[in-house]
């Protein structure tokens, strides 16, 4: 399972990085989403991978899986979900006002405003 898990994180990160380096906003946003999936999986694994174990010690339980990373992943999911919404709207606004969905600024950006 460790092999499958870590290669999933690695492939998601690689694909995300490739997409983030593209020139148009849509692939960049997709790349960011893939990266957040990768980091969520990574965070989840940081409490060690366990199978069929309860997150809290109860009666009769001898081992447990660390609940803290799961809470961290929840926080990260909420934040990244909100951020994806923000950047989609922002990219859409930028595309609609400037008629270009290139991530680059036009040449001479800001110099003439």
């Amino acid at each position, binding site marked *: 399972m460790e092999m499958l898990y870590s290669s999933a994180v690695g492939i998601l990160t690689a694909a995300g990085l490739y997409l983030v380096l593209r020139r148009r906003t849509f692939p960049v946003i997709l790349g960011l989403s893939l990266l957040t999936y990768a*980091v969520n999986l990574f965070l989840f694994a940081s409490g060690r991978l366990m199978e069929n174990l309860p997150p809290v010690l109860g009666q009769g339980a001898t081992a447990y899986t660390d609940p803290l990373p799961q809470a*961290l992943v929840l*926080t990260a999911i909420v934040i990244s979900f909100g951020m994806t919404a*923000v950047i989609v709207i922002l990219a859409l606004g930028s595309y609609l006002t400037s008629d270009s969905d290139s991530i680059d600024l036009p040449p001479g950006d*800001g110099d*003439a*405003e």
Partner: protein
Amino acid sequence: MTHWIILPLVMPPTVAALMILAMRHHLDLARIFAVGSGLALLAIALGLLWQASDGTVTAYHLGNWPAPYGIVLVLDRLSALLVALTVFLALVVTLYAIGTDWDACGKHFHALVQFQVMGLCGAFLTGDVFNLFVFFEVLLIASYGLMIHGGGELRLQSGVQYVVYNLLGSTLFLFALGAIYAVTGTLNMADLAARVAAMPAEDSGLVRVAAVLLFLVFAVKAALLPLHFWLPATYAQAPAPIAALFAVMTKVGAYAIIRLYTLVFGPGVAVTSGLFGEPLLWAALMTLAIGTMGILGSRSLGRLAAFAAIGSMGTLLTAVSLFTETATTAALYYMIHSTLAGAALFLVTDLVRAAKGQGADTLIPGPRFARQGLIAVLFFATAIAVAGLPPLSGFIGKLLVLDASRTAPQAAIIWAVILAGSLVAVLGLARAGSVLFWNTTKDLSPEPPATPLALVSVGLLLATLVAITLGAGPVISYLSATSAQLYDPVAYSAASIPLVDGMSP
């Protein structure tokens, strides 16, 4: 008294929620609440500063959960100082935005500023690394909204770049935190410090990777070369009062570096020793060089102010990278100075833009503009502060940095870069000022409406610069006590993780 610590995190979002729900169509009411909340926060921050000034470290355990299991806020000299600085700057920016009607060209300006203040104060106060991430996100989310306030084609486009860059930074932050938690099993800073210090050197690989990843995140925030690309377009395109408020945002990166790399991955820690000082020094010197060259090469006042912010981060991080007590004192003094001076430069830029007509801060000869004399005087005073010339505080700040680096092995290079950088900055600022204010044609551009409140708020910033120059003695003695506290983190650890039932947590 301990409950005061939570107020900078509770009051701004409460006021912001009120503004969004009850005052979205009442700008006057929102302004009253914004200023009122700013004044109240300033009073609280000064109270906290006074509370921390005798060296006590106060911890606030949220929900009364025992640390390191619960989240803890820690107030020491450094965090109290930066909270006060943030709150003061936010108040000045609010006054300026009210005076110039910047807050009227889009909804929710004041609410977003309140959230930004909450994020900044939280980042300065928290004693938990994951909580630091959360407050980074709070301040970033607010800054995304503020950055595109008022709209416009270029502003939206640079807004997209800014958001993408910072989302990548946040992803990196989470990777670093995951790695840290996987190795140490804790996220409380003081607990982390104890566990990293006790870690055997042979299985330190993952900690070193995590520490470097974390460092890169803070370097992005602090606009350290080569991760500074987001800054010029963002700061030049953001509404000027917002850019002035962002002057304290780069300092969050510097604060996080100072905090974590003295407390957790300090110079004395075997696992990560020698990993940061040297590389940070070279990167900071190059940041300083790029910043000052940018000042000389900018074709508009907005970009000049942005590059001045990069240059000041270079000087600041040069002092930080030495990781000695005197150097940190110098860094903290320069941090206060450069936040105020950088903010003043952005506000003056906006005064010029307002007087010359929208978007006309390009450095080419143009017609004389209204109130040119007064704005020129303000620009002159701000330029002196930014370049680090006597008699203002920039000079004292640079002198402290130079003095602190005298004993460092790379002293010659540090001195050469800082002094040459100052010269280039003076040249760039002099060129900008003379083109804008002297090389003008006869005809007068139309007079904009008078904005006394805007001038008052620029005056407030400059007066504070004068105050920290005149009161340099007391300020520096507070700051050297601060850095002494930073390099002796026993009190910090003891306050944030008290022994529970005689048992070590």
